[in-house]
């Protein structure tokens, strides 16, 4: 069983002429993002997502699962630009802690694109992935909270059956007709405990710190502050030289 991968250049423009607008809107979104016109970048992306929805509907009508899934991946790409825009908007206001969740959103979209897009250099997914991972390393977070619980009832988002039902053949995380299958938790039986871990599935659960915005240079977010102050605009290339320090 091999994972199906997709090529962003393979939109059938004869079949779906409106699909031609998808790439220009991505480019416009990036242009606005780099100029720090975050709200305009987000508007571009929302317009782009509407076209993707239309593409999905048309593709399903044409029984064309490849294009339906491609529309999903383009939507994920727009989500990526939105997340980076929102991240930078907060960073410009020195809200580095709140920006962390948006950075995780962006990394989540990149992870999906890395999995499903045939060539990661398409639309610079590889470069954006490296850029975001480097920013993540600037954060002071090492430990994360993670809960353990028992689920009594789950349903597959595609067929609405239990994922254990022999009739359900959808693998969570795979794409089906423009949707990603997920196992939806319907009923939790019990939460067993909350743990502190260095390697959680979701890094959003962190300890919130009281930070004086006037003393950011000496705060745990000093690296983020230095980076944002000196980087000047989003997606500007930078290299991170990591050194080890003995404590």
């Amino acid at each position: 069983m091999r994972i199906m991968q997709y090529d962003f250049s393979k939109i059938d423009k004869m079949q779906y002429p409106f699909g031609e607008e998808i790439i220009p809107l991505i480019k416009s979104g990036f242009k606005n993002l780099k100029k720090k016109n975050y709200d305009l970048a987000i508007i571009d992306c929302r317009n782009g997502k509407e076209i993707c929805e239309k593409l999905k509907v048309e593709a399903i009508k044409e029984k064309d699962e490849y294009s339906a899934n491609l529309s999903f991946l383009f939507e994920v790409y727009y989500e990526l630009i939105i997340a980076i825009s929102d991240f930078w908007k907060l960073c410009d206001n020195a809200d580095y802690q709140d920006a962390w969740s948006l950075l995780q959103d962006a990394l989540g979209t990149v992870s999906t694109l890395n999995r499903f897009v045939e060539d990661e250099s398409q639309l610079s997914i590889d470069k954006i992935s490296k850029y975001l991972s480097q920013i993540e390393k600037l954060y002071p977070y090492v430990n994360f909270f993670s809960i353990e619980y028992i689920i009594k009832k789950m349903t597959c988002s595609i067929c609405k059956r239990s994922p254990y039902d022999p009739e359900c053949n959808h693998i969570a995380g795979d794409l089906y007709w423009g949707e990603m299958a997920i196992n939806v938790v319907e009923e939790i039986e019990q939460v067993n405990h909350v743990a502190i871990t260095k390697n959680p599935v979701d890094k959003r659960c962190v300890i919130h710190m009281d930070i004086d915005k006037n003393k950011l240079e000496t705060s745990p977010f000093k690296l983020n502050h230095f980076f944002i102050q000196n980087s000047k605009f989003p997606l500007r290339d930078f290299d991170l030289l990591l050194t080890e320090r003995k404590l």
Partner: protein
Amino acid sequence: MTIKITESDITLDNLLSIGDFDSETINKIQNSDILLVPRLDFGDKKERAFYSETSNFLKFAKTELKGYTINICENQGQEKTIELRSADIWLPSLLISIDPLKDVVLPTINSLISSYLFYRFTNKVKDDKRQVHLQLVAHDKKRKISKCLKYDGPISGLNQLEKIDANKIFGRK
């Protein structure tokens, strides 16, 4: 990375002695080549529950291993799931009830596990930060004994399992 070979409590007889399995589940326990077994005593309440990868692994295994009977050990509709929220990968315990002497089942299972992990987690990005936790229980039908092979380590270390000889696990010459 650790690989441990131990005795196992997961035997067909032990599973069949669990009182609340219905006739369909009992049939699955008796007749499956590969049975996905839940944790039998999870948490304070000692509940039966599957790790969250189980339903995906079941579908993948059924697609990959067409000639084998693969089932989960639970009454249909009563499956519970453990969500650990760790980035580690907890695979279901597999009870393999095929005579390992005359079969190539262990290498097949190892290959299945590697393919699954590649499919789900490491398509392009090499991901050795994630730890894999796996328990394979090989059941010798003739002698009615089970041996457990437990692996905890990175994805890249799974190839070490291929070097394990099923005969040695059962102490045969």
